[in-house]
């Protein structure tokens, strides 16, 4: 008796779900998996802006859903599965740690398209996309090297993955170029989003003499800590963080995902979606540089803008030789630039950075 009731209700539920599916068929459903809350003021905030831009662009023809604060790892598979079962046509998974889960779930739902941010594993229905944040890091490094008085620059890392290491290297190369005495202190927070821990890390770095804080974590907490401390400058990460301008935030790297999200949604609608690997930078507009405030001397600002222009038009590559690796071995010869494969898998520091990269 009980079993039959259960079966009947399950059948009913399936029928209803099927009905809803048919109803929504005219609409393209786009799902987003976020690693932090949409109000983090940084990374996830900008992805959500991209989602809103998709809604604005396509209006009634599209339906977006998102789940925020999804832990990297197995829990994200559950979220993706649910989205796919709910009829999503396209799912953006917006953190590095979703890479294997995305591949696993994509294999189970061959008709659903997946887009994984900052990863390197692709499949027939999995694209990857990322932005060349290291181009922005070069500009930050330049400003940081010019601005530091203590010659100690603090860097809050999240996880030791190629994207973060690339950013550290790029910032270091350009800080060193304008200030040979500069030293980087790197602290790994092992989190993308934990305001209290990020603030603690910033405070520790400041206590240890850093007067510039670069962050590769998602919240604005390090900005608040720097503001408390006074004479410390910071850079907005992933989002403009303009509420902390003109001091401590003197500039920022802004991720602009909207054009990409709109283009990919359009491709699904038109049936032209194919698995691709997109990696755009300042030139294509995926990476923006936030306004450089008056806290930066005019000539430094000019140099920074010139650097930005040369990166944007392709005349300068932030990883241009001669460069050596941390262990002293050769990385790039005079005039040689790093290819994308090397950059994508970067797992070493350049010469001059102290400390080891955690495994």
């Amino acid at each position, binding site marked *: 008796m009980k079993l039959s009731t259960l079966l009947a209700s399950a059948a009913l539920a399936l029928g209803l779900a099927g009905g809803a599916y048919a109803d929504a068929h005219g609409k393209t459903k786009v799902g987003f998996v976020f690693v932090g*809350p949409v109000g983090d003021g940084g990374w996830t905030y900008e992805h959500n802006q991209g989602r809103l831009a998709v809604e604005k662009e396509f209006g009634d023809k599209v339906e977006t859903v998102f789940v925020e604060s999804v832990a990297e790892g197995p829990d994200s598979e559950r979220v993706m599965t649910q989205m796919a079962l709910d009829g999503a046509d396209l799912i953006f998974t917006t953190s590095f740690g979703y890479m294997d889960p995305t591949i696993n779930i994509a294999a189970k739902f061959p008709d659903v398209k997946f887009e994984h941010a900052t990863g390197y594993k692709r499949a027939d229905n999995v694209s990857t996309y990322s932005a060349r944040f290291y181009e922005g890091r070069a500009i930050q490094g330049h400003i940081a090297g010019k601005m530091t008085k203590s010659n100690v620059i603090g860097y809050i890392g999240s996880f030791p993955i190629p994207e973060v290491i690339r950013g550290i290297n790029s910032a270091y190369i350009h800080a060193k170029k304008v200030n040979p005495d500069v030293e980087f202190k790197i602290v790994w927070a092992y989190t993308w989003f934990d305001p209290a821990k990020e603030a603690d890390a910033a405070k520790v770095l400041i206590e240890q003499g850093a007067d510039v804080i670069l962050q590769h974590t998602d919240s604005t907490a390090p900005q*608040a800590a720097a503001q408390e401390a006074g004479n410390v400058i910071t850079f907005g990460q992933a989002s403009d963080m303009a509420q902390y301008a003109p001091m401590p935030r003197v500039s920022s790297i802004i991720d602009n995902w909207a054009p990409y999200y709109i283009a990919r949604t359009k491709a699904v609608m038109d049936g032209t979606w194919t698995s691709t690997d997109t990696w755009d930078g300042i030139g294509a507009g995926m990476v923006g540089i936030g306004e450089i405030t008056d806290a930066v001397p005019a000539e430094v600002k000019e140099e920074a803008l010139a650097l930005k222009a040369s990166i944007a038009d392709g005349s300068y590559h932030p990883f241009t030789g001669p460069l050596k690796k941390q262990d002293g071995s050769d990385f790039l010869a005079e005039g040689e630039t790093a290819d994308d494969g090397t950059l994508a898998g970067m797992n070493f520091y350049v010469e001059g950075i102290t400390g080891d990269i955690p495994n």
Partner: protein
Amino acid sequence: MDLSSINPVLFVAGFLVAATPLIFAALGELVAEKSGVLNLGVEGMMIIGAICGFATAVETGSPLLGFAAAAVGGAALSLLFAFLTQITLANQVASGLALTLFGLGFSALLGQSYVGVKPPRLAEVNFGPLHDIPVLGPILFSHDIVLYFGFALVVVVWAVLKYTRAGLILRAVGESHDAAHALGFRVVRIRTLAIMFGGACAGLGGAYISLIRVPQWTEGMTAGVGWIALALVVFASWKPWRLLLGAYLFGGITQLQLNLQGAGVAIPVEYLAMSPYIITILVLVVLSADKSAAPASLGRTFHASS
């Protein structure tokens, strides 16, 4: 490696601050659990306290009013839990989890217009000449009033639980609610008060993060402190002093590992990063080798008819 770049005075002062939210939240939960109630909503009550305190401090310009509002906010949310578990006899684990989810969502809604706002600063307590004592001055006498209040609260809770009739009644309710009921104690009322105390403390802890430790409002900013507080209560085997020790250990090692990383110590970062959890648990487990156990009625539903 350059250990000289670590300033021990700033380090100790820093970890006292880092431990304070944990002390408040865990202490509140300890009292609730001593009365036999398992409230898994600590994280939710903390984040509600964080935004209530932040919003009030910004609107009134007074951080102390902010802390008061945080306590009220946390207690108000805990009343919802008290209603569900004490009046409607709902499952405590499920209600607590729901409270956390609700608190996280509701605080995000309340906090919409406070993102990027700078809160007023709570001044340090003026200890006069004490502050000028070398080393000890900056470590012990350079904090805000709420940090000292947190320490005092541990002493008060310990004394009340151990030496007063009120504490005895609270423990009796937590050990055997049927016996306590038979003796004429109002189990539901006592538990409701304990839950509210827990909520108020969690709220204070949350506000300490948003007003002092970070200081800013960001969605979800407690980021798991409530869960650590819950674990701490168990590992401290429901004893206030051990809880204090555990909180300082956890806060201290968290700060220490950041400092060591900054100084470039040659210990793999992975070990440093996990050390606060492991060492705190180890020390407290060793300490709890005696016969102290959970309150016997912990998590059990009480109704006078049973």
